[in-house]
């Protein structure tokens, strides 16, 4: 019986150590697959400019999607081959169109996207000032007349005016 208990205990210890070793190996394999990039890395900078095709408006540099990771791997390969940032971006535009850019190029019809917001802002500010300027004297005049002009038809209002003006 004692031998049986010792045997079971040894089996448990050996198998748990083997399992731990397996977990460690698996963990090490995963760690070796992970590429840690900093904002200074060209691949990360390019990845921030490119749209992940299977995500909602997310750059591939920050997407965990397999598609985005494959694109990041391709960026690193192209960078290692000596391709510049613009050349790498061009590689993706040639295959996915300008759709792949998170920020549209400031050219052609795209200029509207860049020009219209400041124009609308300026027009809006101008309209607001113009409205305030044209309404301010009118509003103050209305207030003055409301206080000073007597309404002989209503005795109650007349007494209120008298109280206010006194």
């Amino acid at each position, binding site marked *: 019986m004692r031998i049986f208990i010792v045997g079971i205990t040894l089996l448990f210890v050996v198998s748990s150590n083997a399992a731990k070793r397996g977990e460690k190996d698996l963990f090490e394999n995963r760690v070796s697959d992970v590429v840690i990039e900093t904002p200074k890395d060209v691949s990360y900078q390019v990845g921030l400019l490119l749209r992940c095709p299977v995500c909602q408006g997310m750059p591939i540099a920050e997407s965990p999607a397999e*598609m985005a990771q*494959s694109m990041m*791997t391709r960026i690193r390969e192209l960078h290692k081959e000596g391709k510049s940032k613009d050349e790498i971006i061009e590689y993706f535009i040639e295959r996915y169109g300008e*759709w792949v850019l998170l920020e549209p190029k400031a050219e052609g019809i795209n200029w*509207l996207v860049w020009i219209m917001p400041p*124009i609308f802002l300026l027009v809006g500010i101008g309209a607001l000032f113009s409205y305030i300027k044209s309404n301010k004297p009118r509003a103050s005049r209305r207030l003055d007349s409301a206080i000073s002009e007597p309404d002989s038809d209503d005795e109650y209002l007349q007494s209120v005016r008298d109280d206010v003006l006194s």
Partner: protein
Amino acid sequence: MNWKIILISVILFGPLFWALAAGFGNDPHAVPFVLEGKKAQDFQLTSLDGKVVRLSDFRGKPVVINFWSTWCEPCKAEHDVLQHFSKTYGTTVQFLGIVYQDQAEAARAYLKNRLNLFPQLQDPNTRVGLDYGVSGVPESFFIDAKGRIRHKQAGVVTPQILVDWLRTLLTEVSSGEGQ
């Protein structure tokens, strides 16, 4: 005064409305097909049964490349259609399957008990998928005998699409245009 305001509003808002109206007609998630008419990039991939396959090996006849995976249900739906057409057009059109972001073992297991008449290729790191601008599966590319990409079918390829495109490409071959 009112006419001035209307004119300024039209000048300012007109282009904006025009741009928005043009944009409303587009699906923001649809990846545009920009490779139309361009030369299909050559590749060398290993099939699931270990054979090396190059796209350039099939120059001179139309090629249909189908990107698929086992986790994609629509891909399974079109599998039999592609096999049927491969059987029908086998000698005149080359069909190629490329396993997209999937394990080779899973693809082999899936194909084990199914009709599989054309090479199924492995694409490490989705390299070829990226070269062809693939953004999801299923996607199928129709390449003419000159090696130019003529059509991309994003989504399930139907018998009608296959008939239309294969007839077009084969007519070009027989008339000498595609050679």
